[in-house]
């Protein structure tokens, strides 16, 4: 089974085809940015993109990702090592507390901004409804997404 992750092709044993993508990433490929939180698509800590669409990798069999472009938090920035604007704003605005959910939050936010460059609060609430933050950083997450959107649209940062 071949998986294309962050633009790079990886070969994974066919016996792992039913294994959730999350565990292939974490245990087989050493990409630990996607996190295990619930195993039942309730918390969103494991969010990655398949062809640009956010999915919960804890309930996505690896085989279902074969032939698709898989993007994880490790590959969200560009090839030159530059951070995605969301990652920059997340650092500037000190969004995280424990930080465990934040990769998943950012992946959901990145997918949102791609298809909706000027999201409202309601758009953000809807796109991130599947991502829990136990520390309660939701206020900062919302503000950071607005700031990133403004920056992407050439506006000034909030």
């Amino acid at each position, binding site marked *: 089974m071949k998986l294309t992750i962050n633009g790079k092709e990886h070969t994974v044993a066919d016996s792992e085809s039913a294994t959730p993508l999350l565990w292939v990433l974490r245990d087989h490929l050493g990409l630990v*940015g996607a996190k295990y939180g619930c195993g039942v698509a309730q918390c969103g800590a494991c969010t990655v993109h398949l062809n640009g669409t956010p999915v919960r990798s804890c309930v996505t069999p690896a085989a279902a990702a074969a032939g698709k472009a898989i993007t994880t938090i490790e590959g969200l920035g560009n090839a030159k090592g530059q951070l995605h604007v969301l990652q920059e704003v997340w650092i500037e605005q*000190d969004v995280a507390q424990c930080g465990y959910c934040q*990769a998943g939050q950012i992946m959901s936010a990145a997918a949102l901004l791609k298809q909706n460059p000027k999201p409202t609060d309601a758009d*953000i609430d809807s796109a991130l409804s599947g991502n829990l*933050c136990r520390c*309660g*950083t939701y*206020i900062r997450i*919302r503000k950071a997404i607005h700031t990133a959107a403004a920056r992407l649209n050439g506006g000034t940062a909030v």
Partner: protein
Amino acid sequence: MRISPDGTILIYSKGPEIGQGIKTAFPLIIAEELDADWTQVHVQQAAINPVVYGRQSAGGSRSIPASWDQLRTAGAAARSMLIAAAAREWRVPVEQCQAEKSIVIHPGSGRQLSYGALAEKAATLPVPDEKSLRLKERKDYKLLGTRVSGVDNRAIVTGQPLFGIDQVLPNMRYAIFEKCPAVGGKVKSANLDEIKKLPGILDAFVIQGTGKVNEVMPGVAIIANSTWAAFSAKRALKITWDETAASTDSWSDWIAQAQELSRKEGSTSLLSTGDFNKAAADAKFVEGYYRYPFVAHAPLEPQNCTAWFHDGVIELWAPTQTPEAGLAAVAGVLGMPQEKVVVHQVRAGGGFGRRLINDFMCEAAAIARQVGTPIKLTWTREDDQLHDFYRVGGFHAFKGAIDKSGKLVGWSDHFITFTADGQQPTSGGDLRPDEFPAQLLPHVHLTQTMLSLKTPTGPWRAPRSCSIAFAIQSFIHECAIVAGRDHLEFLLEIFGEPRWLKEGDPYALNTARAAAVIKLAAKQAGWGKALPKGRGLGLAFHFSHAGHFAQVAEVSVDANKKLRVHKVTVAGDIGPIINLSGAENQVEGCVIDGFSTALGLELDIKNGRIQQTNFDSYPLLRIAHAPEVAVHFIQSDYTPTGVGEPAFPPVAPAICNAIYNATGHRVRSLPLSGEGFNV
């Protein structure tokens, strides 16, 4: 700390980082007194070595107050040595030199030397006597009190391995450990032969454990070549439990028993001052019976630990709040000297008190010794919910007495709580005689009855206060309503004259600081403003963990009990602020956690088994329902204290009091979802 010739400064942060921001706050304190250029500072978590570092644990919001002087002194001592090195180089008195942003300056001659250039010489000078050091005054701070982004933020947002669960060692195996869902159950038999035949499974075996819930309970370990193989095998595991000594606890039975008991006084007296019955006879009399549930900590990173037993030594990588205690516990369980146990600190994905207890470390150690290769034990979410040390539920039968002038003069509480040993209240389930407002009123009668339990309980964010504040601060509002008084005025009156109940003790209530935060929260929230029907403001105060916090919630409730918390205005006094961004983040988080817990979190216990095993039935608050939070700090000159906990307790009562003011419905039992409220 290490200062390199290139000017970079490596500061070891001594305590566990669990999301409270201490890995940034500790080095910031050192850097302030060091006059370091913060952009040159790098931070690593320290090795566990109490001889060098002193206290190395995270709990009770005590990290800052317990380490404030030690860290300031360390920074000031290093600065003094750097200045001394420069003065020696220039052959001028040290008094003529000053430091700024990692540079020592001699203003008289305009000469400068960087810390990097001075470090090697400074390191050879004697460490100055602590008493000779002059620490900065607050007005001179350049870093403290500003907003500083967390030192791990870049690694967090790029998905670098930071957390316990991210640890990997060469030749590492993956482990799960299955215990009886009713605490106290022992393994009678298990289908180990079948499990060992499953793909990716290397071994499966019974561990009898120590039988202590904070160490290792009986269970079955499965060793696999991946986490998923271990999790899959866990589902196929069939264990027959001997439940002779297992818990049969039942939340619904306790609710019924407590209801019955609440009609009488408690069997034990906790505090009796003045004459409550006489006061009540001459006064308006108020009664209210309150209840709050058991809840789980549910940190988003489940319990896990990586352990490697080799060469007579055991090494552990553990997301724990108490690495020293964990080290001692592992040594005890394995029967090894403490010198042979090495604990490495790793970032923890949330703590909330769960990781004060190191059962997961002891389990990993026991498994690792048996396996011989490094193992990573990972609990499933279900394991984490089933095997927590829960926030204990409780019941309060209150009576209040209001005199003819409308003043609260008498307070009575029959507190119904739980005991595991038949002697003492279980962890988190004690009512202290000095709990507000008992110590401020003339006629007080506090009694207690304890129900037996086997369900493990433990400290949960702002232990005791996190639950008791809901009951107490709601009932004070009830008394204000019966007195026909404004809640703000009624509450302020309880504090009386400005005084510190125990001069010099930050853990004692200071009525001046209390009144100040209450007034500030009320003013900032527009207390008394006109609101449309169905909308209300609610006020609550609580003092815990050395923090004085008042909050005003603004809510609206429609005819279908659809609740919206629009805004929570917080005023707090924890002394000077270390990292303003971190402190504000903690308060915002406390408010969201407080609302989340009050709204929908409750554990049902049936036949000793927790019923809510994942987030589908244990609904943490989601982003759409997060209220706006306005944070106002009174930056006083008292010793700085912690902020991870004390902003939590007033949240639930402020919201519930606002619901009353919006609707006339008094919430006497949590969670709100159980009372029919929804978002």
